[in-house]
């Protein structure tokens, strides 16, 4: 199954670690923007971006909450960049059970970055807007890609039943069940 060629908007937040001064304005602004009503409360613990920092290692890494996972990885890789050691967790935005990050402090539910999805849309996500040092910058690019026709959940289920029992057997069962009402 092949789809059509479509144009897609790709939104990217670029992070320049050398420019970060560790001030955490991004966290403050993220929590304000996502408060209900908007800006009514401030709480970096609710932010979907956090500056992972270790000043004595000169480590300042703003990371953005991405996907939720039920299981943590072993997280054992250590990267050395310009003589400084970074744990791989320092760069990872996955909301995982092995660390207390990107979880709502009250409910424990995952907090995922939505790039400040808003109506009307913002020019730039809020964390980028408040980063005066340009450690965070925003880029929108258009990319062409072939849109894959995705199967929905029921189709996936039916297809696996066909693979297992054959189309005829499935059709018979379907007719029988529907006649029973």
């Amino acid at each position, binding site marked *: 199954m092949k789809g059509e060629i479509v144009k897609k908007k790709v939104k990217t937040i670029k992070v320049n670690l*050398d420019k970060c*001064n560790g*001030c955490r304005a991004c966290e403050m602004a993220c929590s304000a923007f996502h408060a209900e009503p*908007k800006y009514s*409360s401030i709480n*970096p613990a*609710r932010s979907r971006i956090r500056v992972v920092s*270790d*000043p004595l290692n000169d480590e300042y890494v703003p990371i953005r909450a991405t996907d939720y996972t039920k299981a943590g990885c072993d997280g054992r890789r250590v990267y050395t960049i310009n003589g400084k050691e970074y744990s791989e967790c320092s760069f990872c935005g996955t909301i995982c059970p092995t660390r207390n990050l990107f979880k709502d402090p009250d409910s424990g539910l995952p907090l995922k970055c939505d790039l400040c999805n808003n109506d009307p849309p913002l020019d730039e996500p809020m964390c980028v*807007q408040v980063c005066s040092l340009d450690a965070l910058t925003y880029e929108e690019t258009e990319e062409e890609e072939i849109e894959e026709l995705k199967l929905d959940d029921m189709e996936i289920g039916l297809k696996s039943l066909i693979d297992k029992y054959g189309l005829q057997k499935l059709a018979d069962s379907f007719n029988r069940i529907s006649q029973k009402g």
Partner: protein
Amino acid sequence: MRYAETGYNLEIDLSRGNIERVETDPKLMEQYLGGQGVAAKILWDRVPPDTDPFSPDNVLIFSAGLLHGTPVPGCNRTAVNTFSPQTNLFAHSLMGGFFGPELKHAGYDRIIITGKAPDLVYLWINNDKVEIRDATHLRGKGTHETARLIREELKEPFAQVAAIGLAGENRVYTASIEHGFSSAARGPGPVMGDKRLKAIAVRGTKDINIARPAELFELCVELRNKIAESNDVGDWMAVDEDDSFHHNHFAWGNARTRQKNYWSKELQERWTRWKYDNMDRQVGCYNCSKKCINVISWPGQKRFAYKCYGKDTYHMAAFKELDYSYQILGPAMEYGVDSYSTPQVLAFAIELYEAGILTDQDLPNFPSDSGERIRYLLEIVVRREGIGDILANGVYHAARQIGKGAEKYDHNTTKKFEQLPIKLGKLNPPYFLMIATGEKMAITQIEGSFPQDPLPTMEEREAFVKKWEVVLPDEKFKRYFLQWEKRHEISNEASCAITDWNEAMHYIDDSVGFCGFLSSFRGQFGGGVVYHINNMPEIISLATGMDLDKDGLWRIFQRNRNLVRALNVRRGLRREDERPPEDHWAVRDHEFEQKLLDDYYSFKGWTKDGIPTKETLDSLGLEYVSEDFLRRGILTGNEVTPSKETPAQKDEEPKSGGC
């Protein structure tokens, strides 16, 4: 619901191990804002004037500023207040970083610590869960090492830690409290050590609510852009490598020797190379885009950081170059000592040795090189070893304990505290007033809105005052500055008003939490600050919901100022203590200075002895202070409030005296 503030204090009694979360009276914010203002009120209520600073009854308060944790950029200075063992007066101390905002998010506006723990402990504040934990395994550990170990054992990398090092544990009077790359000096370090409190770790995940959120956020976008774009705020010393100002004009050694032609192009190039070849980055404090803190990895040393004039004090005490400071700042940060006052104490000891007052018996194997000597002395002072035990009490006390003529080497203290090593020719009248009457012990904490010196030409002055259009409390300051030709020639009327304005901005900053580099300290250089008396009321109102205008804010400054004065008056501070170092200026005129002091006291509504009158106190809602003063006989009730002499107040009906 409380806006901007949390409405709760955390009360810790280290003697009994008692921990309480106590709701506060909302009126405190309306009267004193927060931070140091409210801390002064608590110290007034709870610490009787005869309390020894090293008594369990002394109170140590860590305060978040009123606007910490709001979107207001650059609002992050934490106030630490108590009574200082060195001065026996109110200790004014501030640190930047992240501590205050984190405390607010944990649900507290301040931590009030009383008592004394039986052995070394640390405090762990994790939202509503607060524990006093054993810290005996951290004994003798450096300040940063302590923070690292605590984060590890709590498994809480986001905890903010403030800790004392060896110096604080040993109650060295110049000990500091270190938090990240920020540090709180001038008194609370030794008190924290006396209470056997090694550190405080705090983690908070609660909301701070804003009264008028959308409007405040929008205003903060504007303020943030101004902070980022303006060269009139932040620490210019982080980017300007020409530091001829301090090196040519400040005195080296024990605030003694000026080297007027020290600075050279060649030296600047060498020092710039040392800095940039070894600097990892420049960092800032919570929610501020400025990069005031230089982080350095010097070969053979652990990573350390400094800001502003902090890089100069050790090598100027030792007559060395910048590389010397780069070798000693890291260890000094781990020991936790104030880089302003400590090097002066050490240089004072070298002078005593050279004068034969301290001998080889006091200083066995004392090296001959001045740099080696400073290191040697630092080691014995932080450990209180041998003569170090006496030197650890600061220049004033050490001089008197050593005797044998050592007193005359104590030439640079005021109110028993080491002053910046400035030795000038002719008197600068506003500076005479600020150093004499200031109660924050360091001139950097008092000066700042009005320039230090006149500008040579009228064109330059006019260009300067243009930036004042928005920041001025009153048009008269323009006139004062435009007419100012020679440093020592300025009217008493102007000197009084200038001192008042300079003080006002600091008192507001210290209760709201604004950084002086965006506000109170910075206006003197460049004139265009981001936070000033004309925009602060709106910012505070939007965040707190309080109805506040410029006059109202100025009144709170006056209330806080008089309350701090009252705390010290009640502990014995009088006119005779208000004396800048004798040699601060070469040319002195006793009669002129005393008249100036008279005029200032009268401007402030204080008696000839520097005591706020009943009328002054009562007009600011400080009746509880005047009642206390009458009861103790500090005021008799017959004082006449001196007539006000400033033009702004001339139109007012003269009020009858205090009775």
